[in-house]
């Protein structure tokens, strides 16, 4: 019932360039969300987070960048990506409106454990989004990650590789 032995030898492959094999991979992208800081006083307080990016992807203009953003900036980014790109954008950590009500036992949205939970969620969100090949084409993502200020009245556009 056995047939003749099939030829299962590997197909011919070109040998790999040693600098390709042992050099740094071209997919390096690291995003960290850290150092939450609450600014302002009384009812006008809000928390900002530092976003540090390190990469060797050519699509990012800066190979290292450091900006500060607040939660509403993340909401803006998510809205832009949903509208402009075909990406299924992941969820942000919760808005926690109930924490903004008065007469709470804890610090509400400025509670340390809540901020830490939110920080982790924002970091996961950014890593998921920034690694998406389609999201990387959106101007809003690059502005969010690398420009000093987010200009919400920008003109949405696609990034073209040089």
């Amino acid at each position: 019932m056995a047939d003749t032995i099939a030829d299962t030898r590997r197909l011919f492959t070109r040998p790999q360039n040693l600098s390709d094999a042992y050099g740094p991979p071209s997919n390096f992208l690291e995003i960290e969300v850290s150092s939450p800081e609450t600014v302002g006083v009384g009812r006008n307080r809000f928390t900002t987070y530092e976003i540090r990016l390190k990469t060797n992807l050519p699509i990012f203009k800066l190979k290292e960048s450091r900006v500060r953003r607040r939660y509403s900036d993340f909401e803006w980014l998510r809205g832009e990506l949903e509208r402009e790109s075909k990406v299924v954008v992941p969820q942000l950590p919760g808005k926690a409106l109930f924490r903004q009500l008065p007469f709470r036992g804890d610090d509400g949205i400025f509670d340390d454990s809540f901020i830490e939970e939110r920080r982790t969620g924002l970091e996961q969100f950014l890593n998921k989004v920034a690694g998406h090949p389609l999201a990387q084409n959106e101007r809003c993502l690059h502005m969010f990650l690398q420009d000093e200020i987010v200009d919400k009245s920008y003109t949405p556009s696609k990034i073209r590789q040089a």
Partner: protein
Amino acid sequence: MSFFGFGQNAEIDIVLNDADTRKKAEHKTEDGKKDKYFLFFDGETVSGKVNVTLKTPGKRLEHYGIKIEFVGQIELYYDRGNHHEFVSLVKDLARPGELSQSQSFDFEFTHVEKPYESYTGQNVKLRYFLRATVSRRLNDIIKEMDIVVQTLCTYPELNSSIKMEVGIEDCLHIEFEYNKSKYHLRDVIVGKIYFLLVRIKIKHMEIDIIKRETTGTGPSVYHENDTIAKYEIMDGAPVRGESIPIRLFLAGYELTPTMRDINKKFSVRYYLNLVLIDEEERRYFKQQEITLWRKGDIVRKSMSQQAAIASQRFEGSHCENMSAQAREDSN
């Protein structure tokens, strides 16, 4: 399946003449069970006997005729009432009359054309069977015997490899190659994936075999996709210049030959789906159709002959590497 009415006083049985020597093949039934049936090929003669056994000896059996049919039909599950018969042969065995004792009737369907392979799928069934009928006033006595038909092919003359460069602009470029475009059911898919550009974080890569059954025409076309196999070929992140080999043995999977537009009623096609999954569970894939065909059993070469062929192949490739080394050393 035999249909028995009330007050049946006879049994009918179909026995093939070559029941002792003919091979049987396993075939899946509609409810997923596997059964063995006699195996026939196109052009083979189907001959045997129909045995009519009276249950109560002495009691006569009145009938309006005894016949046997050889039927090949296509049944669409969503249109059960309409069987489409593409082969229908009849042999009359007895004229209307009376049977006073159990009797045996010979039949022969000579060199019957069996153009398609037996197939039981998700929305369609193609089957061949013998049906013996004793016609009576109120209810007929019927006995059916299913057989399995396989269609054989010879090695295709043209069997080019599939080689293509695909990717996402500036993110991921790969070149994939499969050694053939037509594989027989116990063949091996030998191929490779060569990475030209990797700017995403790949976690692993797999190759899937997908079977697509298409039934119906015009406005009501149904596609049923079934992933027959999932085979991981790479675990970890590749870099530029890396080549990942593929070696996938088809004999381990439940496959049928590719069937294209059978009697204009249905098709069964197979695709290789190359899937890359990145660290965020995003999937990047490329589907490619392959043709599957059934090879006839050939006379086996002796084991020592086969071993000689295999070792020649191994030595051959060894020599290639050695000479490449020699050239490099001399430079």
